[in-house]
């Protein structure tokens, strides 16, 4: 298992997540795609840490906490959107900014 293979896999998963971010209109589906991208970035950290050394694994733990925080705040926003408009399609959020 060479480093290049893992990097290509991570890039592919990241691209799929990017596609999801660009095409999904539903807020929760958008969050799922963002999760995919963050996850792919973590894979790159671990791959470099294991196969080439360096402090990647500690960075993965920090990135994980940041991702979890993002999910918590994101879902709270989804709740807010739903409570205001009765749906969670992102176009509705356009009028939310005052």
């Amino acid at each position, binding site marked *: *298992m060479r*480093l*290049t*293979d893992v990097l*290509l*896999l991570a*890039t*592919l*998963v*990241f*691209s*799929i*997540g*990017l*596609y*999801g971010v*660009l*095409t*999904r*209109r*539903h807020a*929760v*589906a958008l*969050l799922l*795609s963002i*999760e*995919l991208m963050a*996850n792919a970035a973590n*894979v790159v950290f*671990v791959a470099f*840490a*294991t196969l*080439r*050394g*360096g*402090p990647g*694994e500690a960075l993965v*733990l*920090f990135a*994980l*906490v*940041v*991702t*979890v*925080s*993002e*999910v*918590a*705040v994101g*879902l*709270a*926003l*989804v*709740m*807010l959107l*739903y409570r205001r408009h009765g*749906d*969670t*399609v992102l176009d509705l959020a356009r009028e939310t900014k*005052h």
Partner: protein
Amino acid sequence: MTFRLGFGLVALVMVVAAYMVVRSRNLVRAVLWLALTLLGTAALYALLDAPFLAGVQVLTYVGGVVTLMIFGVMVTGRHEGAVAEIDSADRIRGLLVALGFFGLVSGAILKTDFSAVIAPRPPSTAELARSLLDDYLLAFEVTSLLLLAAVVGAVVLARRRDPGPVGEGSPR
């Protein structure tokens, strides 16, 4: 050989599951496909000699994030009816951007020489703990503060206000 086989299997599962995450028309299924992707990532970590991270991945992502997501989907309801409209129309543009990104980055990866080695052996869990609580202690503490702020923020945002005097009801 078995390593390559395992990696191929994990990669296949991850890519197929990730594709289903962005294409599934049912949100609950999309979340479950995401769980499969994250489990595949945990397996990849295990293959990459990072058993601790594999465990953390399963605990926080599959145990925490996916549960939270399913909760979010269920509470915001209509997961049966609203499935048709979760995709936007400009699929072609999204595909072009994603393919362009993949081509660009994978081209760069294939051209780069990654032979430089920083540390000869892979880090162990003990070393990971030492670096967390020694070299990166400040970042560690700041991270805990960030987590606290995020949780408080989420509670403040999602809190159900008391229904005010009259209907202008928008909290803010």
